């Protein structure tokens, strides 16, 4: 039966050779139930060809291009939203699912932290103490050797370029070959190796957020490295969705900004520490 189902499949699309057609006809002559089913299936195709689409008026077609251009203009205006507005919107979507008590807790934590900061800085410490404090604050924030920070920054920059290339690829309109998947997979594999080394080297620095970011990135990079083909649209869309839902690109930007802010203080504190032999 399965063999004849294959013949029926070919017959429905008109791809049957005369010999196979004869075989199928002979089989159907002996099997009336399948013959009835096949006739009904052919009937569906005949019916399909007779159903005319509902037409639209000439006024509808005359206004089609103008409606299209209006929509394109609206979408262009929306796309001009600033990076900050987009980031704020992204932040809001992260925060939205949280229960009310978590916002209250967050406000309480902020107030307590403000109180501690006021208490700590309201007295005038000596120069030595100030250097220690500065170094302490700096060490708590990002206690990283410069070389490690540069490696981390480079890693984040390379990951950003790779992800942007994928996120901006239009799976519906662009030619699959323009994705250049082989090259992207090679870069992803390289970054995966670097990720495991970085996480190990960052462990003593207690940079838990940064290590978490690198782990999240690793998941995405593994997905990219395992894409089977350029035309595997669902898999590519899954990767893009993962980047979007995790807010990876925003997290990378915020991390880089934090690292850049801390770096000047750290350099100053390190030089002060040398000066006062702490």
């Amino acid at each position, binding site marked *: 039966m399965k063999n004849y189902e294959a013949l029926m499949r070919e017959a429905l699309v008109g791809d049957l050779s005369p010999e196979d057609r004869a075989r199928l006809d002979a089989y159907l002559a002996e099997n009336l139930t399948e013959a009835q089913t096949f006739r009904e299936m052919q009937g*569906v195709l005949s019916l399909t060809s007779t159903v005319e689409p509902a037409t639209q008026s000439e006024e509808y077609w005359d206004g089609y291009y103008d409606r299209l251009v209006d929509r394109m203009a609206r979408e262009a205006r929306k796309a001009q939203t600033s990076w900050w507005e987009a980031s704020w919107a992204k932040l809001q979507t992260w925060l939205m699912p949280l229960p009310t008590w978590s916002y209250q807790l967050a406000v309480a934590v902020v107030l307590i932290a403000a109180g501690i900061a006021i208490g700590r800085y309201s007295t005038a410490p000596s120069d030595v103490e100030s250097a220690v404090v500065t170094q302490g604050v700096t060490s708590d924030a990002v206690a990283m050797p410069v070389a490690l920070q540069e490696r981390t920054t480079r890693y984040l920059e390379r990951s950003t370029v790779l992800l942007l290339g994928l996120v901006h690829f239009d799976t519906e309109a662009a030619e699959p070959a323009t994705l250049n998947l082989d090259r992207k997979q090679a870069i992803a594999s390289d970054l995966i190796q670097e990720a495991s080394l970085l996480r190990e080297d960052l462990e003593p620095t207690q940079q838990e957020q940064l290590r978490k970011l690198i782990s999240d990135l690793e998941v995405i990079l593994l997905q990219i490295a395992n894409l089977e083909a350029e035309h595997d649209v669902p898999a590519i869309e899954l990767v893009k969705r993962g980047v979007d839902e995790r807010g990876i690109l925003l997290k990378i930007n915020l991390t880089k900004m934090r690292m850049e802010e801390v770096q000047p203080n750290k350099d100053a504190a390190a030089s002060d520490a040398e000066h006062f032999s702490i």
Partner: protein
Amino acid sequence: MLATTNKPVIDTRFREKPFTFRAFVETHQRTVYYLALDLTGNHHDAEDLSQEVFIKAHRALDSFRGDASVKSWLYRIAVNTYLNKRRKKALAFMTLQDDFDLEHSAYAQPDAGAEAERMRHHMAEAMKKLSPKERSAFVLRYRQDLPIKEVAAALNVADGTVKSLLFRAVKKLRKTLVMYKPE
């Protein structure tokens, strides 16, 4: 970008000389709209989908190499956009009767018009039972009369997969359209 798209340019990929985006849309709007209508089953989503197709085509004009025909390229964009929307479950399904604002065919008799409308309704209801890929394959092959190879290219699948999709689609439609079975 919009300001420049209506400037006539010579572009051999699109055959129309001179090429403007307006002319491009007006040439293909009916084809794209009716394909979208067959895919979505209602006017509102068909207009939305067809507009998206042209917006994506507009953005991808530079990357279109002209290897395939323009029609095939637009079909591929339409089907991929439709399948992605269905995956995201963004389409609202409304019945054909509720949403259409049509004029009757100029050639229909009053009775024939009602019959045609009933058949369209039954076909639309039957098509809802198909999966998005089955529906796409069925529409491209039996409503747009594309050869199997072009259907396969639009869906990014092998020819054999298209035939399997079509067979499954017709089997499902047969069950739903039982009132129209041949004597």
